[in-house]
């Protein structure tokens, strides 16, 4: 549930133009007198039944092309500077993640809690190699500031993915318990684990599915929807590309299956 404003806050009254007046001025600029609701094109207010139909179609299309999309995703992601590792078996994925941590001489890594980790016992494997794993989920009781400080001193952040977009080579992450957006952006190295069923063809697929979900959940998008496409980078000085500014310099993609 959204956190609501406390009554005092809502009543406090901020400076600014009241909405009706502001919209009135816009309407006047548009040269219209009536404030009758305009017919939105293609319906800005989605029709859940129609969205369901489209989504079912999209899922079918994606499922029938899963292998091909996985290959396309791997190729595009590599172009976007992800270090792509294909892991046919779970052990391969575990091996890759642990050897990464060891190579970084990481004593601590931080991990978000996504479904993939139920299949893949990353924690045990890492702990076995002497790497401490900090799951975000346990942070509830902890001071937020403390978790952040901890995060800032870890060498690596590990996440799953809600979608992997073949068109753009992006990993999409949605909010859920035990997941912090900071895991993929604060530590200098980010590792994302992707399962084949998370791959979709295009941005259109992601937005269709999320739009449907918005209505299914009674009009809640969740507080964020984040795309990660390769490492942090900038070209702000002399248009010269530099990798690793505020976010990670190194990003790894472990593709299962």
């Amino acid at each position, binding site marked *: 549930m959204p956190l609501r404003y406390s009554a005092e806050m809502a009543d406090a009254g901020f400076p600014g133009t009241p909405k009706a007046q502001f919209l009135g001025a816009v309407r006047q600029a548009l040269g219209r007198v009536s404030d009758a609701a305009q017919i939105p094109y293609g319906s800005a207010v989605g029709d859940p039944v129609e969205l369901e139909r489209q989504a079912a179609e999209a899922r079918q299309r994606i499922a029938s092309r899963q292998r091909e999309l996985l290959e396309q995703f791997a190729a595009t992601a590599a172009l976007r500077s992800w270090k792509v590792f294909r892991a046919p078996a779970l052990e391969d994925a575990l091996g890759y993640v642990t050897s990464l941590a060891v190579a970084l001489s990481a004593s601590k890594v931080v991990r978000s809690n996504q479904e993939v980790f139920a299949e893949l016992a990353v924690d045990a494997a890492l702990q076995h190699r002497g790497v401490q794993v900090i799951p975000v989920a346990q942070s509830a009781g902890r001071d937020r500031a403390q978790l952040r400080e901890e995060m800032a001193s870890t060498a690596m952040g590990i996440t799953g993915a809600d979608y992997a977009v073949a068109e753009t080579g992006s990993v999409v992450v949605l909010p859920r318990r035990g997941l912090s957006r900071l895991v993929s952006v604060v530590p200098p190295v980010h590792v994302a684990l992707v399962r084949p069923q998370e791959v979709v063809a295009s941005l259109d697929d992601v937005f269709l599915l999320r739009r449907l979900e918005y209505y299914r959940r009674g009009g809640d998008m969740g507080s964020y929807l984040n795309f990660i496409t390769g490492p*942090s980078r900038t070209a702000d000085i*002399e248009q010269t590309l530099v990798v690793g500014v505020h976010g990670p310099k190194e990003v790894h993609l472990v593709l299962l299956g």
Partner: protein
Amino acid sequence: MAEVKTREFNRASSLSIQDPQLRRALQKVGTGFDAARRENIVEVTPEVWEQWRERARQIKLHTLDRLDYYLDLLEQRVSQAGGQVHFAKDAAEAKAIVSAIVQRNQVRMAVKSKSMVSEELGLNRVLESLGVEVYETDLGEYIIQLAGETPSHLVAPALHKTKEQVSQLFAQKLGVPPTSDIEAMARVAREVLRQKFLQADLGISGANFLVAETGTLVIITNEGNGRLCTSAPRIHIGITGMEKVIPSLQDLAVFLRLLPRSATGQRLTSYVSMVSGPRRSEDEDGPEQFHLVLVDNGRSRLLKDPDLREALCCIRCGACLNICPVYQKVGGHAYGWVYPGPIGAVVTPALTGLKDAKDLPRASSLCGACREACPVKINLPRMLLHLRQQLVESRDPQQRAEDGGEKLLAQGYAAMMGRPDLLGLARGIGRVLQAPWEKQGKLEKVPAPPLSLWTRSRDLPSLAPRTFHDIWEKELSRAPEVQR
């Protein structure tokens, strides 16, 4: 509002042209971002590119025509997500709103991700006057904040600086050793700002798009600073122009395809952050308050003018700057306000008043390159012409440009061209008068006006010894191939 120095365009641009550092910095404008943009068009094929542009344009025009409806929907949906929308008719109101949020929450430190609207409002000064420590976190913005300057490009605000200048600045302001390594400079910014992200109580961002249907603010960045600004501090303020709204989530895809490709030639930026309200109770992180400040500040003037409305379709990609022969020479600061280049020349007069920005619509050769580059097909040359027309025909004398005898000249020219005898006489006199300055068919550096206005920066072809008419009569028309 940020200081308006548009009156000085002519002076500022000649200074810019003479600045060797700036010329070096600007050299890459056409070869860097713009070359990458072109490669992308080839990759997706020009046909597909054209379809995307047309679709994006239609979405924007549709939304602008019903802007009141979509703003209303947006407000409802943001509130439903637990956020609060504020409406500001001008810069003063926008600043008052932000000040109120800051004071009520006893904000001490703010981190900002790039926002042109915040530049437009001059927001940093207000925050500082309230005792808030403000940090720009986009590398380019951070550089110009340290230098006490304003952005010179929509996408790369510190484009006017060479790496030597940045290195000097960092050494001076941050006490780090000078370096020629750009990576090392980025590392300095990372280290300095890292702590600020974690300590700040307020994150301020702009918005690239606002999705009405779901009440979502979309920002795209490459550095990751946008994500940190919007998720680490306990309050997030998104501040942006009211024209940024699009109808639904499904309309967003085409813009995410066009914007990064047009701006930096990327398929997609490293980060796209979409925020819908504050953190929910089950979230592990995120701000407790989400405020969205929607700013008019002169935009309704653009909306009102059917000839200029489409300027509000702009997605601030900077492609028209990169390709503009004028921008490439004079850089962004000469334009005198926040928005430079061809789009700045259209938007600035509307937002700050044409009477103070008379030179901007004339700072174009009307070559049309900007229109071709624009991902939403804004007809910039047509709008520049429209503004020039206003400069000539406006009933408000303050808006009219001093025409410097142009009208008289045009009338004289018309009269002369209608009378061959007069024309011949004028030519004869002209040939005599030009003799002292004529050199190999060109006039260089004529000392007195009006010709000196032209020849101070370029040569003028001189009146030729023989007219074409004469050559035709006596030779060409008698040449054998013409007779055949």
